[in-house]
């Protein structure tokens, strides 16, 4: 079984960070994982993205052209990666910053107002955690408890932000869980 996802957004939105947390939690669960930052022609246009693969068996290509899931945190990311989502896959988009509906009909689309939720929690920087939570809720790629543990470790130096981030993660998870999508075969 394999989950793979391209997460994309503006630099500074914490995209690479949530990708790393996802990969790290996967590794903790004994899965095979890889994390590949924006590298190659996709890097152009000021967007940051990373590809995370979580699998039961050794990861083959860490480069994924047709991912099973895309998390788009801004409009350029949606424009760029919407066509690449594998048919039957998952397209999760940040409706707070993206003012159009995705056009794809053959994938599961989840609308996540990530910035609005983060702001309402008094944690404007937590939109990335909302998105990660939503991805986890929809795919169960790794358990949310494992990710919570990673959050605690990641922010160990800044204990004040741990709980707000966990809250953001859980709120996202609730949204995602309403649209569960299965993982594909590796």
């Amino acid at each position, binding site marked *: 079984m394999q989950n793979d996802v391209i997460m994309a957004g503006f630099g500074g939105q914490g995209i690479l960070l949530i990708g790393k947390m996802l990969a790290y939690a996967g590794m903790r669960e004994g899965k095979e994982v890889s994390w590949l930052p924006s590298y190659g022609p996709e890097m152009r246009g000021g967007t940051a993205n990373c590809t995370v693969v979580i699998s039961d068996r050794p990861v083959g290509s*860490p480069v994924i052209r047709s991912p099973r899931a895309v998390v788009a945190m801004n409009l350029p990311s949606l424009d760029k990666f919407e066509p690449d989502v594998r048919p039957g896959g998952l397209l999760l988009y940040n409706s707070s910053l993206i003012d159009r509906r995705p056009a794809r009909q053959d994938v599961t689309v989840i609308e996540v107002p990530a910035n609005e939720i983060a702001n309402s929690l008094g944690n404007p920087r937590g939109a990335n955690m909302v998105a990660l939570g939503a991805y986890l809720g929809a795919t169960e790629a790794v358990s949310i408890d494992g990710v919570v543990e990673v959050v605690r470790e990641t922010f160990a130096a800044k204990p004040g932000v741990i709980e707000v981030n966990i809250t953001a993660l859980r709120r996202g998870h609730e949204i995602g869980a309403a649209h569960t999508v299965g993982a594909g075969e590796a």
Partner: protein
Amino acid sequence: MAKKLMKGSEAIGEAAVQAGCHLFFGYPITPQNEIPEYMSMRLPQVGGTFVQAESEVAASNMLYGAAGSGERVMTSSSSPGVSLMAEAISYLAGAELPVVIVNIMRAGPGLGGILPSQGDYFQATKGMAHGDFRLLVLAPWSVQEAADLVQDAFDLADYYRNPVLVLGDGLIGQMMEPVEFREGRLPIKPLEAKTWAATGNDGSKPRSVINSLFLDPEALERHNVHLKEKYDRMVRDEVRFQSYGLDRDYDVLIVAYGTVARVCSTAIDELAASGVHVGMVRPVTLFPFPYQAVREAAARASSVLVVELSTGQMIEDVRLALANSKPIHFLNRMGGMLVSPDAVVDKIRAMADGRSTEVVHA
């Protein structure tokens, strides 16, 4: 030791530290800056030394001094920087100094671009610099293997008293994967004390002179013969490769190395799911090249596909292995563009239905 999630660059640095390398000299160049950055942070923690040199030229000569002092030492760079180091690498080989050099290849020629490439295959395996010498060249395909090969590289360098090159690309350097460092790792070769090192002369041993200059042509020829014997031993004892999917019958054999082989493995798995079986031989050592393994695996196939991020530099070695016995097809991207699993699948299908033409032999 528990698994850690590390970037390839960090894993390479940590592997070196754990292999007892406490000296690093380097000069910044993308896409490998994480290696010197990691070493500048890590080496002081173990009482080691990191120096940012004024140039790759200087860095590689600092290696010469440190290695000649009997210490384990490493540098890393990327293609244009390695070209600048080539002079010193010839001297290191001539003076028989053990060092580890990491080349995270970028696309060229010239300044080219910072994206992944395999365009330095010839440089690494055939023509690094002036004079008759060879480097052991190790090409990892995963972060874990990069760490393992770096550690092996130090043992091999010490054993052969020869520079060892670890050849990766930007993907290997930037990618994060879990890595496990074996505790209490034993050297893979029986290593002797470095009595040849120039560490001061108190009369207890012959004077040590680290040198590649031989004025007497007969003495130089003897030295060349000695080096050749060393390279012959490498060819005999150090060939490494990995077989993939050779346990079933296959029509096409892929030859690819490094991250490209990773991509091919995914394509092979996808094709297997649809009943098409493809085999692969992945050279882990590029010098010595696994000629015999390629020849034997190709004997069971009707054609061979070479996949590379270059104009086809490795094809020359594959042709040597096959001696024109099988048609060779070629799939590549260059300039930093990557080969995707889909492209490999398409190519294999094209070979099956006759849409792919073989590489024309000169």
